[in-house]
């Protein structure tokens, strides 16, 4: 194992609000695994969805500023838990290879941005830099009995040329991690489907339909929970689950975890540290049953 894993950490805006538990659990597992994170000083919003729908150079300016901040830390790689931030940061770096575009963006900034920095997701460095085999060695509380489906969402690995990680149609990174943690992973056929994303605000019906289908499918394949790697996916499936139930006449009660939360649990971190109490659909019963299964197994041993 590489003991000197050291990254700049870009939390992204949702980490300070709707997905605070993703941020907490990401930091907690990194600490537990000995991965050093240094917060990007004075980071700002990556531009999110609104910026690039209005103006590409504005969007890239917002992201480029953050990449420049990382470069000024003397680090060459930056990680973020959020796939949307990841896409923006990577897109900015890519588009700024074009001279004309770069000039346009730099005009919007105080000083020309250094965008040499490589950005990766927390998931990617866990798989590629830390290694699933090494994660397995650190598991103290296996997730025995947890039947889980991995849902990646539509942007985590797309476009493939830009994201350069896992498969664009059939990613396996989270499936493999969950399996290493001792969970029973059921293949989730809609793993790269759209959840409705930010349409939750202008067109709620879209999210009710798309996320509803994801929950229906989870139930059909017998998943007791889903793991996600995206704040927006998690929010649509978790926070809006009761709305979906109302809209579609369903009775889903499926906890939606961030993969980092379940990873933390298996590493022996406390529910508090992992922000389990922040989830809308309570994972209580499910977590209890995992703990019970584990006890039974220990006794049997």
């Amino acid at each position, binding site marked *: 194992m590489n003991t000197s894993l050291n990254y700049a950490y870009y939390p992204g805006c949702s980490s300070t609000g709707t997905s605070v538990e993703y941020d907490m659990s990401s930091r907690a597992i990194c600490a537990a695994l000995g991965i050093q994170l240094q917060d990007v000083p004075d980071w700002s919003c990556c531009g999110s969805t609104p910026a690039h729908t209005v103006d590409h150079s504005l969007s890239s300016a917002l992201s480029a500023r953050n990449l420049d901040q990382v470069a000024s830390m003397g680090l060459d790689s930056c990680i973020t838990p959020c796939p949307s931030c990841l896409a923006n940061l990577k897109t900015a770096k890519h588009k700024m290879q074009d001279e004309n575009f770069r000039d346009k963006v730099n005009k919007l900034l105080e000083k020309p941005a250094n965008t040499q920095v490589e950005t990766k997701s927390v998931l990617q460095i866990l798989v590629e830099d830390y290694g699933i085999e090494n994660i397995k060695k650190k598991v103290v509380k296996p997730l025995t009995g947890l039947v889980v489906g991995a849902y990646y969402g539509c942007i985590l690995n797309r476009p493939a040329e830009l994201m350069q990680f896992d498969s*664009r*149609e*059939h990613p396996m990174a989270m499936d493999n991690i969950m399996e290493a943690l001792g969970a029973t992973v059921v*293949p989730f*056929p*809609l793993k790269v489907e759209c959840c409705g994303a930010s349409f939750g605000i202008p067109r709620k019906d879209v999210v009710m339909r798309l996320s509803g289908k994801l929950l229906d*499918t989870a139930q*059909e394949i017998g998943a007791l929970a889903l793991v996600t790697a995206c704040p927006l996916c998690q929010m649509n499936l978790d926070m809006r689950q009761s709305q979906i139930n109302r809209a579609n006449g369903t009775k889903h009660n499926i906890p939606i975890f961030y993969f980092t939360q379940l990873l933390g649990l298996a590493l022996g971190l406390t529910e508090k540290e992992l922000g389990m109490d922040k989830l809308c659909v309570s994972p209580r019963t499910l977590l209890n049953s995992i703990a019970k299964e584990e006890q039974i197994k220990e006794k049997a041993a």
Partner: protein
Amino acid sequence: MKIGVFVCHCGSNIEATVDTATVAAAAREFPGVVFATDTMYTCSEPGQDEIVDAIKEHNLDGIVVASCSPRMHEQTFRRTVERAGLNKYLFEMANIREHVSWIGKDREANTNKAVDLVRMASEKLMNNQPLYPKKFTINKRVLIIGGGVAGIQAALDCADGGLEVVMVEKTSTIGGKMAKLDKTFPTVDCSSCILGPRMVDVAQHPNITLYAFSEIEEINGYVGNFEIKVKKKATYVDWDACTGCGICMEKCPSKKATDTFNEEIDFTKAINIPFAQAIPKKAKIDPEFCTMLKKGKCGVCAKVCPSGCIDYEMKDEFITEKVGAIVTATGFDLFDWTVYEEYGGGRYPDVITSLQYERMLSASGPTGGHIKRPSDGKEPKDVVFIQCVGSRDKSVGRPYCTGFCCMYTAKQAILTKDHLPGSQSYVFYMDIRAAGKLYDEFTRRAMEEYDTNYIRGRVSMIYPKGDKLLVRGADTLMGTQVEVDADLVVLAVGAEASKGASKLAEKLRISYDSYGFYMEGHPKLKPVETNTAGVYLAGACQGPKDIPSSVAQGSAAAAKVLGLFSKDQLESDPQVSTVDIKRCIGCGKCIQTCPFGAIKEIDFRGMIKANVIETICQGCGICTSTCPQGAVQLQHSTDNQILSEVNALCQF
């Protein structure tokens, strides 16, 4: 020397960006040039006559034509000057089309460049010598590589024309893909009924020697006199004695061998005969699955074989065959579609290939002609066909159209309805490419009479839903998303070059395109020739094509071979290397570098000298650049000739 120069307009191909009159005028000032003119189409009859007349009128003894590539018309003009009584090597061509007019728009610069090229040609011409080809006898036997429908056609046509034919087929039976098909478009006639008898003809024809389960190891020689080393791969069964009774196959306990003939929809035995109508109908052991060959245990087949043909010690055997011409008909293979993760990447058993579906439709196939889902053996009701899988898709490196999958998909949709009248077929397509006699009518029949639902659009995703497969795609005509609950999905997987095509091309010394398909001599005018004399092409090895076109090419290649063999002797190309024995110091460098082994050591009055065997030399000229003495010279490209061109260009 009195040189005549003809500068061609090539219609407007050259004239549009080269001032040919100026080029001709400039040429008149060159040393040796006594006549120069520009002409509309030099290659046409009046154009050629003009050359002949000028030779006679002006007593010319050398000709330069500035026109297209020598690839195109060097032979034409050599014949023209010969007609006027000159030696055909007292002719030079300046390529001012491909090298000038087609690649630059600046008329002045182009004209200057054309003048330079004409000057180079005429300077070289002044150093040309008349050359005389030698005659050699040809071996009138032909080798056919690949026993698909194209190879079979070529073999039968050649054999019926009286030639001795040697056919080498990689697998243990001939027939190629067509032998795997159920019916064929656009007539929906049974594939084995039309191919079977032709396969039998190959086996029974007194003029054909068939080496099945064999490959080409080595090819030496040249047109008229090739020497072929054939590797007969070990079958562990003595084929002279094997009667094809199939008892061994029945009793073999190893039941999980890969069944390539049935496209792996089922398993076969470790000892197997691919199918009942196989030619030759002989058993072979697949060592990967044979417990006797792997662990030294079993030996059942040896015990049960009534003819005692099993030989576990059998080794590969090498045979040498001498032939005068070669037809390569190695066909195609299917693209590995599992790169398409959106179609399940191979994870879903009920997503199958078109060729697997053919085996399923075939009455002699592993399901006895019943359409069954691989997952549970149930009859499907809703069958989805997806076209252009691994065709017309740059993202997987296959931008070309396979050309026949639109047609076979329509056929398979029709057959599906015939087999299962209660079924409904859906076809996702990009465009319908049905450009052939009775082809469009055929696809329309699938739509109109067989009620196939054609949906114009791509499929974005297939995923399991209960025991069905949900196929989601776009309907680009309706502008909507569509979802079909399918029981079975059939992928119209595109064609790619057959495995090992490029390796074989290197042995044959023929060229192939970036996808591995063999290059024809000219895309329009030489469809079955290659750029290597005596080597011809037929069928899908040149590019994906259907049965009618493959057969047409098989016959065309046979006609070419029969034409070649209509002479008893061929003329050798005198453009070969020769050694000036006075200059040669016998260092042997040329012997080491010649890639064709054409140079041998000889003893000349007690001294070692190099000697070129003219019939083996390919005229590549590698030896000339290694000789420290300049003793070995390539005729028609001697050092003096090349230097005169360089001097013409670098006049300072």
